[in-house]
């Protein structure tokens, strides 16, 4: 059931909105009136509705089933949060209205900031970052600014474990650093010997994900923090996996200097097919002076927003590293996240971490006999397997994952982290039921058996029960077709 593109269906003369007739006033565009057609088809409202409803049904979604993407934390998205984000008093306000007319908005931002600082035990948070990677940038820029303020122009090396998300090295480079990789030890954690050997007076910082992307808690984290601080560097913590410890461990107690928090992971703002995210970043005392503008401050009953660097300097003697973004960050996500946090409360959030870890360990326990667990022992919120169990079956990690689609599941994260071969990283989250996990494990065990039994066709041709068969990604990259062109209609009709 192919759905034609709007360009193949719509009409330049058709329109799905009604607007008043213009009066025909003389324009004041200084001769810049558009002279040529744009090429934008319009669809009536009923046609529009169907186009998108039909397309939506070609997507998998958390509302349809388990979405076990390691490191991505796909959990239930409560509709209460969607409802509250649409209150006109919160959604229909402009970022540049007089501050006296948006006191409730500032209060909400301040309240969320309070929750985030309390949960992390840190004294400062920047609400600007638009996503997790943007939060990394916020944190690493503050580190860079702090080093610059100390006159440390020689500290440009950033230590990054090989299990790190790609955003870590990419971010470091965007802040003018070079990265230096630390391998994992046999237990899947930072190799402390190598780490120590890399410390020196050119080291700016370490970027460490904790729990790490192998789903393991970095046992030596306090020692790492102490050592990096002794060496004159800072500790950036990637908070992508905060879901595993929220309410049970406060990263500030571990000695971190900066950490972003993915509101769209731990605090369940919907992923929306790839965004928007939101990545508020918390800071230690050491980095607090460098946080970017804007931020809200409270004076008695009144809230205000500090919007300019000079204002920040005048008010608190801070040295903001600049501004990351127009306006005030992802307000719509703040609303959703705060609603989620208040709903759980401190007790519920603690339960979140516990159930997330329990669910992951349950999967690990049920599967480790048949699939190969990458490391010994228990895990945190995600279970990591390598592809040893597929050896000599002719089935790759990719094939195995695609076969899961035919069983009605979204695949787990594949080939990441890079520290193990053919990685399969499963994160169930706390919003899955035991019965659901049992069905999932039964399915994986069935597939494992099928692979071992040589039923390779089932894997190599998978998926067959999906809106599309396996797609040719090489062709897409080799001769990129990034926009629709007229001559495609014929091609599509073939």
């Amino acid at each position, binding site marked *: 059931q192919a759905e034609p593109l709007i360009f193949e269906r719509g009409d330049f003369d058709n*329109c*799905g909105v009604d607007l*008043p007739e*213009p*009066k025909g*006033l003389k324009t*004041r565009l200084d001769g*810049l009136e*558009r002279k040529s*057609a*744009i090429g*934008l088809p*319009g669809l009536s*409202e009923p046609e529009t509705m169907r186009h*998108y*409803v039909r397309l939506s049904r070609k997507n*998998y*979604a958390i509302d*349809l089933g388990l979405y076990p993407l390691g490191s991505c934390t796909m959990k239930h998205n409560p509709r209460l949060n969607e409802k*509250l984000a649409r209150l006109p*008093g*919160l*959604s229909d306000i*402009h970022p*540049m*209205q007089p501050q006296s*007319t948006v*006191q409730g*908005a500032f209060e909400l931002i301040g309240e969320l900031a309070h929750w985030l600082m309390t949960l992390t035990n840190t004294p400062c948070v920047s609400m600007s970052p638009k996503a*997790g*990677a943007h939060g*990394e940038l916020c944190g690493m820029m503050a580190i860079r600014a702090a080093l610059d303020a100390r006159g440390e122009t020689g500290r440009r090396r950033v230590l990054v474990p090989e299990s790190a*998300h*790609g955003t870590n*090295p990419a*971010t470091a*480079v*965007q802040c*003018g650093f070079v990265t230096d990789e630390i391998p994992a030890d046999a237990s899947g954690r930072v190799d402390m010997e190598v780490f120590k050997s890399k410390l020196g007076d050119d080291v700016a910082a370490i970027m460490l994900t904790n729990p790490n992307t192998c789903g393991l808690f970095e046992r030596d984290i*306090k020692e790492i923090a102490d050592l990096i601080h002794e060496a004159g560097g800072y500790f950036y913590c990637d908070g992508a996996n905060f879901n595993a*410890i929220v*309410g049970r*461990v406060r990263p500030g107690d571990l000695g971190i200097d900066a950490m972003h928090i993915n509101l769209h992971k731990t605090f369940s703002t919907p992923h929306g*097919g790839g*965004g928007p995210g939101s990545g508020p970043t918390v800071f230690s005392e050491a980095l607090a002076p460098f946080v970017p503008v804007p931020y809200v401050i409270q004076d008695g009953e009144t809230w205000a927003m500090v919007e300019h660097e000079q204002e920040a300097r005048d008010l608190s003697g801070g040295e903001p590293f600049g501004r990351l973004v127009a*306006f005030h960050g992802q307000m*719509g*996500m703040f609303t959703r996240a705060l609603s989620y946090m208040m*709903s759980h409360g401190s*007790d*519920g959030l603690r339960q979140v971490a516990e*159930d997330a870890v*329990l669910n992951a360990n349950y999967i690990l326990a049920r599967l480790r006999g048949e699939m190969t667990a990458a490391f010994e022992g228990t895990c945190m919120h995600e279970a990591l397997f390598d592809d040893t169990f597929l050896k000599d079956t002719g089935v790759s990690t990719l094939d195995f994952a695609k076969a899961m689609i035919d069983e009605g599941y979204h695949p787990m994260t594949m080939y*990441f982290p890079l520290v193990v071969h053919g990685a399969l990283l499963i994160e169930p989250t706390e919003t899955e039921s*035991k019965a659901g996990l049992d069905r999932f494990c039964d399915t994986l065990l069935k597939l494992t058996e099928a692979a071992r039994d040589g039923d390779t066709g089932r894997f190599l041709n998978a*998926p067959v029960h*999906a809106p599309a068969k396996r*797609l*040719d990604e090489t062709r897409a990259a080799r001769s990129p077709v*990034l926009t629709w062109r007229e001559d495609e209609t014929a091609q599509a009709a073939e």
Partner: protein
Amino acid sequence: MRYLPLTPDDRTQMLETIGVSSIDALFTDVPESARLDGPVDLPRKATELEVERAFAKMARKNLSAGEAPFFVGAGAYKHHVPATVDHLIQRSEFLTAYTPYQPEISQGTLQTLFEFQTQVARLTGMAVANASMYDGSTACAEAVLMASRVTKRKKAVLSGNLHPHYSAATATLAKYMDIEVETEGAAPGRADDLVKYIDDDTACIVVQNPDVFGHVRDLTALAEAAHAKGALLIAVVTEIVSLGLMTSPGEMGADIVVGEGQSLGVGLQFGGPYVGLFACRDDRNFIRNMPGRLAGETVDADGRRGFVLTLSTREQHIRRDKATSNICTNSGLMALAWTIHMSLLGEKGLTQLARLNHERAIELADRLAGIKGVELVTDAFFNEFTVKLTRPATEVVEALAQRGILAGVPASRLYPGQFETHLILAATETNTDGDLDALEAALKEVL
């Protein structure tokens, strides 16, 4: 807790299967001193009703745009969004899907992104567009970095009339990449002269049109001057509706066009989430240096058309420290809202919408210009313009807010210490005659 399906019995059974005696046993890798033995000092769980009441209370403390005659712009605009848009983006399969890395079960997201890219490219007059950025300001900053990569040069020239938040975000991102940023002073109501800054080190000049004061300008000469020196022209559009009526930046010679798409589908949302638009010329080198995700067409194993994320070797999850940017999130849901609104409008609707906006602004400008103490500074504009008052604009705006009117942005809020009496006002199709009457009358009172 309503979101947690495990029952106490489940937990007991599962611990047994795992072979540990308690949940604490799963947290033993945490240093003992960092283990909390109880909930942190925050309120306990709350019912839906309690949470709703707390939010309603905060919401009531704000004056929403729909409750007031509203003329605030400066990079975010109040437009009417059809109910269909918000309904569709709440479809479970759009709202609660992840990044479409598994294309076989993500064709919905991928096809809409491909359609979005095509609409953005056509509207801006460019050949290709990406699958959206966080917002307009970060798109602008990323465009400067891209220009630097493409030209292998390290200087960027920013128009003084570029939205100061955009300039600041760009300067911040450029700073540690050792890209030098030069900026001309702001000039309300006229085009600043940027040609004089262009030299052989210049990677790009960045100019907003309509600019932050609402002034519109022809970019053609600027593009030619830039190209003559091997530099790129980056055009910034913060009011995307303007392109329904105005010559596109592409037609005027821009090499990269970035924009804030908030006007269509998204709403005000106090600044975010918005949707950044990013388009560029059809040049292999440009495309390979683009930031952000790209959806591309391909075929499946049966030879049927399908879509995938493509050219991901530019991206951080593959290239790590060699990536074109660190971005791994777009503004997918807002891009969806944008493309749905645009599909509803089509060329006909967008053109009409743009014209209505323009006409409302003309009417407002003429009315205000007729008030003693108001001088119209911007003579060529789309739906936003600047006036000079006889009193500080901040005071005037506050006085009008007390009267329930949201009158615009004082230029000094964007340029601290400058343009104290300048006020930037926007008008859109949502303004009624009554809104104009109310502003006119109140302004006469407070001036």
